[in-house]
């Protein structure tokens, strides 16, 4: 771990020397400090859970389970991260998860791949709509995505008859290939984990492309970005499209895991993803947030759930704890920023 940290962390010396430009670009020290802090919190929580469970918690199988249980949340949170970096917020990701799950199940008559493509196509349209409304019409992101979540939810209910769906329009059952996503894997790693990993890599890479990097720029200062020739429309709309696509993948994983499509599948995911991203150090005032932080944020939420279970806290109160957590994280982040 220490080696890894050293690798990411630019040493002060390297920072001041003129020649060593390449390696230290993004990791402004404060960013790194945040991540170390977060890791500390996560490790502390894991240690606490280990003691609480007399060691059961840190058994590999349990840790592995935490990972697989939080795959969907992680995938969705990556999209939320992009939007939050642009200084927006996406209140529709949860409903898009539900909508995609319904769409994928209902179109099972077309084989096992086409349904997923249909769903991806549909969420691209949704992403473009949200992005355009935010960028061109200059409507507040939370209103646009709140309204969009209603529209999507409603369409999901209309096509699915208002309830969970188990088979395609013509009665085709969900393809075994899709269902096996959750049971099979390669090298003993389940597919959901692999898909999540692919998403993580894809988003990390995306943030290293020029358009992806501009996400930080427009979140940091949109006026400067505009005058510096940053193609704001393209950056913003792409962010909303990607958030939609990731939510759609979340929907696919949901179908694979539960074996049905449900317009309400992602009910809790909107809140949870915002919680994960903000706990992971992203700022609602835009321009800050990292993939690593978001992953840790998701894990913190996951471990927290486990600890609450270990403490026999009823699952019912968990939304309250998440709500409180969001407020706390946002409050701390906003203080941190005003200090700088």
């Amino acid at each position, binding site marked *: 771990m220490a080696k890894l940290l050293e690798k990411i962390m630019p040493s002060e010396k390297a920072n001041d020397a003129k020649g060593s430009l390449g390696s*230290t670009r993004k990791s402004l020290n404060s960013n790194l400090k945040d991540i170390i802090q977060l890791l500390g919190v996560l490790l502390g929580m894991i240690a606490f859970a280990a003691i609480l469970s007399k060691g059961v918690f840190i058994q590999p199988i349990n840790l592995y389970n935490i990972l697989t249980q939080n795959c969907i949340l992680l995938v969705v949170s990556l999209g939320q991260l992009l939007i939050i970096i642009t200084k927006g917020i996406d209140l529709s990701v949860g409903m898009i998860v539900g909508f995609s799950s319904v769409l994928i199940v209902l179109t099972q008559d077309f084989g096992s791949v086409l349904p997923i493509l249909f769903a991806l196509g549909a969420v691209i349209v949704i992403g473009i709509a949200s992005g355009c409304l935010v960028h061109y019409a200059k409507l507040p992101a939370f209103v646009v995505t709140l309204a969009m979540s209603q529209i999507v939810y409603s369409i999901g209910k209309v096509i699915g008859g208002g309830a969970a769906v188990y088979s395609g329009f013509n009665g085709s059952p969900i393809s075994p290939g899709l269902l096996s996503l959750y049971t099979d894997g390669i090298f003993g790693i389940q597919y959901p984990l692999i898909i999540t990993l692919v998403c993580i890599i894809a988003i990390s890479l995306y943030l290293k492309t020029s358009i992806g990097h501009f996400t930080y720029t427009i979140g940091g200062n949109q006026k400067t970005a505009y005058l510096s020739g940053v193609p704001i429309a393209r950056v913003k709309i792409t962010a909303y499209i990607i958030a939609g696509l990731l939510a759609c993948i979340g929907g696919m994983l949901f179908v694979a895991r539960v074996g049905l499509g449900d317009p309400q599948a992602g009910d809790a995911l909107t809140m949870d993803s915002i919680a994960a991203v903000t706990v992971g150090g992203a700022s609602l005032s835009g321009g800050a947030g990292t993939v690593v932080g978001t992953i840790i944020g998701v894990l913190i939420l996951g471990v927290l759930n486990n600890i609450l279970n270990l403490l026999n806290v009823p699952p019912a109160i968990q939304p309250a704890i998440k709500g409180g957590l969001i407020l706390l994280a946002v409050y701390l982040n906003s203080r941190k920023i005003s200090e700088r």
Partner: protein
Amino acid sequence: MNDLTPILKLKQIGKSFSGIPVLTNVDLDLYPGEVHCLMGENGAGKSTLIKIISGSYTADSGEIDYLGQTYPSYSPRWAHRNGINTIYQEIDLVPHLTVAENIFLGNEPLTKFKNINKSEMNKKAEAVFNDMGVDMDVRVKLQTLKVANQQLVAIAKALAFNSKVMILDEPTSVFTNTEVELLFKLIRKLKEQKIALLYISHHIEEIFEIGDRITVLRDGNLVRTGLIGEFNKDSLIKSMVGRDVKIERHDDGKKMGGVILSVEGLGQDGVVDDISFKLHKGEILGVGGLVGAGRTEMARLVMGADRRQRGKVIYMGKEIQIKSPNHALALGIGLVPEDRKQEGIVPMRSVSENMAYSLIEKRARFGLVHWKAIKKMVLENFTALNVQPQSPEKNINLLSGGNQQKAVLGKMLCADCDVLILDEPTRGVDVGAREEIYKVMKDLKNKGLAILMISSDLIELMSQSDRILVMAGGRIAGEFSSAEATEEKILALALNQGGNQQ
């Protein structure tokens, strides 16, 4: 008048921002019933002084005597409640409330049941306007009024609060001639009511029409206070600029090249109109004028940052429709904006990244940002500009204003522009950085770049430019060659002696 005691007396007021003095030892007396004009060019310290009188700023040194009491400072609210009222250019009223509600906001007459007594409030408001001799429907929402009428509401509000000192900050800048007449009638009435008025305006003719005394500020110092009769137009302008600095014109004998950018009849409603000029290769064209003359707006129109309604832009011999700054930069036109913090930098990001925005897309490799190549280019400009400290990976927030400005300029150098628009390139920049920026400008000019330099600093304008345009009221008021320009001439044009626009 002189046998009265002043109602407000500023004694040795000093104020500085981050070490740079803005006001030093300024004295000012205001007598009841006088119109005291405060004059000075941009940056002379007028607005800081006003803000100290109105309580928004606290002076670093000095005291204020008001109504016989001495105060080191007070809050804006205290000032407002105790009869010191400022009528700002940007009006400090609540758009969605009615005129009467605005006048009595926070001080509403109540009924027995502690409801707002609307009829009495409206009656009182009407009475105030009657006293002012102004016809006004006090029941309409403020936002439906024209700006000039909103100013009148602000004055009425001050009067309703028993105003004793009224500060009018460029009240006529958005007025038509008839509205100005109305305002002057009102000011004369206020004088009769023994209200002391501090009047700030850029229209010299207005000053001589309405003023009783004039105080001139220059570079934060008090230059002269005197009765209006002691001044004439020329002597007033002279005391505003009156520096004895010898201006070194930079003339290196290089001939400028052909026209690269020409603008014809550029205009946008309510902002600028009829702007035409030609910019040559290897030329620094200065644009002078007062704050609010429409210079920044003109630059934004050329840059495609705002949509123009009229006019043509001809670039390299071809008429072009610039759609956005992105498009302008692709064509080779770049802008270093006036407001560095709001529009120049991306906070929390490194200096090198801030300089690299135009390169990020151009230099991408397989779609990924190719930092190595970018850094190499950035580093060249970084070194050439001598940005301090010499660590391009530092968070840009940590740099001084001058070095941030160099970085913003560096961003445009990286963009490889043929035309650079520099909006106040040395504002808030220390002397050392200023000289370095001048040097860079000269190098660019020698390389054949065309520079349009907007500046409120007359010395900068005259020492750096090959030609100087002067803007006033959203139009080009005149043009000088660098040889014939003097501070007086520029200021006289900028002060827009020709009356009001619209």
